[in-house]
């Protein structure tokens, strides 16, 4: 997998369509794709396979194909019945997805930006989330939420709101960091019988490419992945920050042996993999792009404080966005976000403790 630095000033996702993706038929083969292309590929694969899968959201249909062009060409291939432009009413169209899912359809709803997921909040946290627990009827939808910042989009186009949903019983939450997982987790999410929120990282859309298995490739929900092995310290992270963490670890090669756990699924959390790694290394840095305060990282650190206590040789360091809205101007946003330098510093500090 080739990484190019994030935040290059490229107008991420706001302009160009992804290059047309050739989906190889059948399994076995691989293709190099961007993260964005992998998402399109997953959707197309599932829509070809299962007539119950449909996509809906703002501006996703027609020649336009969505704010980030993920569904470009979809209406042409699948028809207006399965590719539905909605008015600007998140509460209403997530609600409609609830009803469709109850009837056995598999709607994949696009939020134009993850930031607008709060507008459909009740339909998600009050209706879909507790439904199976309450009366046993599954609500198998997926909400795709283009999240994360670093791309000068300001407080309302840069949010990482996953903690709200991890705290809410009944939702599954995934956040891929690679093209292969972007495809594999989306296919798994569509096939899952539960409501799944799929956080895709906008800064990765076109900045990373990687091998992606063709055809029906799935990544299991609920399984973290060790993306770098090491012995002295564990970084627990997910999403775009996986790449910042890998870069930091590379930079510290020879100085600290860093293991990196990419959570991939935020709920249900793969506590086994996290605990095994930290029990092995004895040191942990937890980091994500979302606001640090009461974020998902707090849950990880709390887990370690309770269940890896005897193995810990240093305080659990925790990094994340500051406790402020995501500011727009480059110097402010850079100060706001965790990055390679800040991660490097936290690893060093924790390793030396």
């Amino acid at each position, binding site marked *: 997998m080739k990484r190019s630095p994030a935040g290059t000033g490229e107008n991420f996702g706001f302009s160009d369509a992804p290059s047309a993706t050739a989906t190889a038929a059948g399994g076995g083969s691989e293709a190099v794709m961007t993260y964005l292309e992998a998402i399109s590929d997953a959707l197309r694969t599932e829509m070809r396979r299962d007539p119950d899968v449909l996509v809906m959201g703002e501006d996703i249909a027609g020649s336009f194909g969505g704010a980030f062009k993920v569904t470009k060409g979809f209406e042409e291939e699948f028809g207006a019945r399965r590719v539905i432009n909605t008015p600007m009413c998140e509460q209403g169209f997530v609600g409609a997805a*609830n009803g469709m899912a109850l009837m056995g*359809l598999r709607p994949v709803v696009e939020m134009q930006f993850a930031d607008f997921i709060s507008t459909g909040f009740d339909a998600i946290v009050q209706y879909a989330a507790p439904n199976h627990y*309450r009366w046993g009827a599954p609500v198998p939808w997926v909400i795709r939420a283009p999240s994360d910042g670093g791309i000068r989009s300001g407080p309302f186009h840069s949010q990482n709101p996953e903690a709200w949903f991890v705290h809410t019983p*009944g939702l599954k939450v995934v956040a891929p960091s690679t093209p292969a997982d972007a495809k594999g987790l989306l296919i798994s999410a569509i096939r899952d019988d539960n409501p799944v929120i799929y956080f895709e990282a906008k800064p990765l859309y076109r900045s990373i490419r990687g091998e992606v298995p063709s055809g029906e490739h799935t990544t299991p929900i609920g399984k973290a992945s060790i993306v770098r092995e090491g012995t002295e310290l564990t970084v627990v992270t997910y999403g775009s920050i996986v790449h910042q963490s890998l870069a930091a670890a590379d930079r510290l090669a020879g100085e600290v042996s860093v293991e990196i756990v990419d959570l991939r699924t935020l709920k249900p959390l793969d506590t086994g993999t996290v605990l095994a790694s930290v029990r092995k290394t004895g040191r942990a840095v937890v980091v994500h792009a979302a606001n640090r305060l009461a974020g998902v990282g707090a849950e990880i650190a709390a887990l370690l404080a309770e269940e890896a206590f005897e193995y810990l040789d240093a305080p659990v360091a925790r990094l994340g966005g500051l406790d402020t809205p995501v500011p727009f101007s480059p110097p402010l946003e850079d100060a706001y976000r965790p990055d390679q330098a800040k991660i490097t510093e936290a690893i060093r500090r924790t390793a030396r403790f």
Partner: protein
Amino acid sequence: MRLTRTLDDQMIALWKQGRGVGGTFNQRGHEAISVGTGAALAPDDVATPLHRDLGCYLIRGMTPRRIVANQLGRAAGVTGGRDANLHGCGDLTLGIVGFISHIPQSVSTALGVAMSFAYRNEPRVAMTYIGDGGTTAGLFHEVLNMAAVHRAPLVVVVENNQYAYSTPLHQQMAGQNIAPRSEALGVPAEVVDGNDVDAVHTAAAAAVERVRSGGGPRLLEARTMRMLGHAIHDGAEYVPSGLLEKWKKRDPVVLYERKLLDEGIVDQAYLDESARRCREITEDAVAFAESSEWPDPAAVEEGVFAP
């Protein structure tokens, strides 16, 4: 209607005796709406009834035993003790979708149900229920607007009972009727006397028919009065007593039974027998529920996710 009334009265009695768990809603005044509309659906259709639609649950085949057991938090209740009173009393095998407290969510769910019928080209209809209060929520408008765009096979039943909890209509909206709002959003609407079960049923059946045959969504506004408090705890002292007196004369159950007698369709003996059977069914349901098991606390964490 008689069963709805009897069961509702029975719940009130239970709670007054301190045998209830949590709260229970009152149905009185709404029987003709829930029964008249519910009866207009085919078995294959799907309804999303609310807290005043006990009649619809019953008519769709949810048994009093399961309902009372749910009210009392028992394992044999529809939700197995997980959700309260009629909340969450959904059963897809009966074409009933359970509601949540965030009431207007029902109408958007029903829209999705209707859209799924259209998606699969099935001649089925979704029927949803909402109160006057619920129609002041934005979501109600989002749904009517989308339903009109998609010509979804959806019937929206508005139960305009002049109050949202303690809040009278004039504090909720300018105007007295919801129908014009529906029309403006592109959903043809009709106002009907909610205390006349025949009128409700005729209008509902016609709406269902038009919707089923591809005519796009319809709204039916049934006007009535909530005759007791919002729920068991509420004495509804805020309702002018004259208003209740006036509406009491138009009790939907009494009206209908009188009409049946007047038109010679049934005799008093039939009504007496039917009332007796309703009491029997209700008492059986209570006895069943009260003697049935509490849910197993060891299973409290099960079923959050579908397997």
